[in-house]
């Protein structure tokens, strides 16, 4: 994307007036999407964005500037701006020499693409097939929306410590959302697949299956009763979202929250923070999962980090800046939405390792409770540990059997308390894709877990 001598000159300019660290993050990204709604292909959209963000760190201050102009002149101007703002922030004026760049980390490809461009007509065929399959699922399906999205993101990271890395990331996403109409009103169901892959995703995934899952979810809720209110045992199905751990502790283990004392997990390393059944991993290297990449957005290779082992907190998640302050290495968790954003500590694929229990047995041994087949999103306050996560497909458990469907509701709990209440983990592990929002930036993440039970969570339904 940019020649090495140019990068060296730009980094030199960035540090010409002082600073301990400079970095160029260049990105060339193109997205294409197609939307079928109301039985029609309504919109095909294509977008392209390229540019570079330049960071200069002086003392405790980071100066940042970005530009859509990838010429040497454009980059030099951005470097001057980043240097100027770093200095206007009042940081010190140490000077370091810029190391010569070496591609020690090299180049990676995350999600190789079978074809450089996907024929638009092919994506439309997928959308139509999904629409047909969803509508064929039941006469009560009153509306279907199907969406395809593909992106190509080429990144290059070079910094004053001599690091030079490139990563080609290919991602593909397909989702189906259905509305079912019945005597009780409207109900919704959706299903999404999203992977760090090109179009070959569809060799593995049947869009008809996705459509039928989405439709089934909406149809089953037509006869749903309002969710209960109050604390109940909850069984989460394998692959139902895994969002529980993402919210209950994932965010609270991000080193920026830790450094600011804004997490209930401050000072807890080495301590029992969860049930011994809980071993939690964040791993940016897993196959072609949605949160997988070759290098993070600071040029660190993706890696596997064990965060909680047998219930004991072992590690936080680190980006370059937080790790540097502690005199340690980044854990490969520095990510940013685009070149226009500063990187921060983010999760990749966060999952609970499977246990030894049988999923059906867990339900059978639950006399009364709620079975959550699919979760929606969630949210956490890392300082208090209080978090919510929403159901989009849930059922009552009565006498050890899954019975009536329930309408959507949020569940609420406190991270450290809920983690200690995990009393069974099964073997049926599965991952699901999600979008994680933090401080206004969205990045793709994966979440995973097997079927598990929590002895008590508050569910926010309407029936006492």
């Amino acid at each position: 994307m940019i020649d090495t001598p140019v990068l060296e000159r730009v980094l030199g300019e960035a540090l010409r007036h002082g600073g301990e660290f400079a970095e160029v993050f260049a990105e060339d990204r193109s997205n294409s999407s197609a939307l079928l709604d109301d039985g029609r292909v309504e919109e095909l959209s294509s977008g392209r964005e390229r540019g570079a963000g330049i960071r200069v760190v002086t003392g405790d201050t980071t100066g940042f500037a970005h530009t859509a102009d990838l010429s040497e002149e454009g980059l030099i101007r951005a470097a001057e701006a980043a240097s100027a703002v770093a200095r206007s922030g009042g940081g010190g004026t140490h000077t370091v020499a810029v190391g010569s760049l070496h591609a020690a980390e090299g180049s990676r490809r995350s999600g190789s693409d079978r074809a450089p461009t996907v024929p638009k007509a092919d994506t439309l065929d997928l959308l139509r097939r999904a629409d047909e399959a969803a509508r064929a699922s039941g006469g009560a399906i009153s509306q279907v929306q199907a969406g395809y999205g593909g992106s190509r993101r080429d990144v290059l990271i070079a910094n004053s410590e001599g690091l030079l890395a490139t990563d080609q990331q290919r991602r593909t996403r397909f989702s189906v959302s259905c509305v079912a109409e019945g005597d009780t009103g409207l109900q919704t169901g959706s299903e999404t697949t999203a992977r760090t892959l090109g179009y070959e995703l569809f060799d593995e995934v049947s869009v008809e299956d996705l459509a039928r899952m989405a439709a089934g979810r909406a149809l089953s809720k037509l006869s749903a009763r309002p969710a209960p209110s109050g604390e109940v045992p909850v069984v989460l199905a394998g692959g139902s979202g895994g969002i529980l751990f993402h919210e209950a502790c994932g965010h609270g283990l991000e080193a920026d929250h830790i450094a600011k004392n804004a997490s209930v997990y401050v000072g807890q390393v080495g301590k029992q923070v969860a049930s011994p059944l809980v071993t939690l991993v964040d791993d940016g290297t897993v196959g072609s999962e949605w949160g997988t990449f070759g290098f993070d957005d600071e040029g660190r290779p993706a890696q596997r980090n064990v965060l909680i082992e047998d219930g004991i907190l072992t590690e936080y998640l680190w980006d370059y800046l937080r790790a540097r302050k502690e005199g340690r290495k980044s854990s490969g968790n520095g990510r940013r939405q685009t070149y226009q954003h500063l990187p921060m500590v983010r999760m990749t694929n966060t999952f609970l390792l499977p246990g030894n229990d049988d999923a059906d047995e867990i339900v059978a041994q639950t006399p009364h409770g709620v079975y959550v087949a699919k979760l929606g999103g969630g949210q956490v306050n890392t300082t208090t540990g209080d978090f919510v996560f929403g159901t989009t497909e849930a059922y009552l458990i009565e006498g050890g059997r899954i019975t009536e469907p329930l309408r959507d509701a949020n569940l609420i709990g406190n991270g450290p308390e809920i983690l200690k209440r995990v009393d069974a983990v099964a073997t049926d592990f599965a991952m699901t894709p999600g979008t994680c929002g933090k401080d206004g930036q969205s990045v793709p993440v994966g979440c995973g877990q097997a079927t598990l039970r929590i002895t008590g969570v508050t569910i926010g339904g309407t029936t006492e």
Partner: protein
Amino acid sequence: MTTATETTSAAAGPHPDGPDDLLALADRVAGWARSGEDVEVYVARGDETEIRAYDGEVESLTSATSAGIGVRVVVDHKLGFAWAGSLHESVLAETLDEARDNATFATPDDHVQLAVPDGVVAVPFDLWDEALSTIPTSQKVALALALEAQARAADPRIRQVSSADYGDTSVEVALVSTTGIRSSNRKTQGFISVGVIAGDGDASQTGGGFDTARGFDGLDPDKATADAVGRAVRMLGATKGPSGRSVVVFDRRAASTLLSVISTALSGEAVAKGRSFFAGRIGEQVGDTGLTLVDDPTNPLAYGAASYDAEGLACRRNELIVAGLLKGFLYDTVAGSRAGVASTGSAVRGGFAGTPGPGCRALALTPGPEGFDEDGVLAAVGDGLFVQSMTGVHSGVNPISGDFSVGAEGLMIRDGKLAEPVREITVASTLQRILHSLVAVGADVEWLPGIAAGQTLAVGDMQISGV
């Protein structure tokens, strides 16, 4: 950076103070339209400053300019869209070509069309603060540092200032179409926000505050700090609240969020596609007779005040629910055509990378009697739950089915006054029932950032889940 969330002004000819070069560029690209096709060109350019203070230092400082173009092509009733994050000469024709190519794949639809000027005269607004560009960075840095220091010193129970930010944006937009739309607009915005952590023993509680202004002047760190500190400190000692049926008073911020969610179901597009619980209910009683809901971006006090919508039509006042009766929905050109009505001038778009769709800009309930503020609402309610913050709105509120279940924190209301703090509870009902269960609407309208006014709101018969 956020680019051009608000759009367009001056239907005919360039705005006297508008970005003439952007208009000229949009004119030029629209001029490349071929016979038989309609083209709409949206170009935007923005400057941004963002400063984060932490522990007496500047943690980060961002200064950036960005620009982009979004092109819609309609040919044979088929729509195609393309965008690029650059206004470089080489990408302009490429973007138009890509939009043109995308259009060939769409399903023909008689309702697909670009906006045509409808003769409605726009209310002019000056949303540009010329002074903003003259404020030196050092002064903005000083404000961020002062905000952080002030929050830290505000109360001995403040353990940490987790964030203290200053930001400003200046955005210019031009919109030109071959169907006769030609407009431009520019807008500045300044903001500060602060997040604090209050502590007492082992327990920590959080609070956030902010202020916005047209530019740098007028930003009030006292207001932001007092709000953040007050919210955090009053939550100290919070325990998990009790379960039961209760009246719930939503503070102005929570009420604004609630109205925003309801607005999704008032989109004419959602209604036309059967994705709203309001579908097919025009003329019916959908709420309490005390409920009147109006979207009025022509109100100069509204945060979302705008002259023109995202398709270049004049924004106007739209009555949606009057005395509990459902009167109408919000339409852009395509959704209006689908429903057999004209656009209500309600198109919104998320910048150059997005296409327009109908949405609210300045939604508000008719306020209660003069002077009826938060204290008044609390006194009228007597006993219940006061909610100062909601979580999981995206995961627990469904504007299609109407199911409503959110995490909440706040304080109990006893004898008409705020009492002990509670946390880790949910508040649930349905949006349909909420509209029928309004107990009180405050007169304390505050135009918070977003699409709906903040005004204290009391809703009866909600289910609280806690201990």
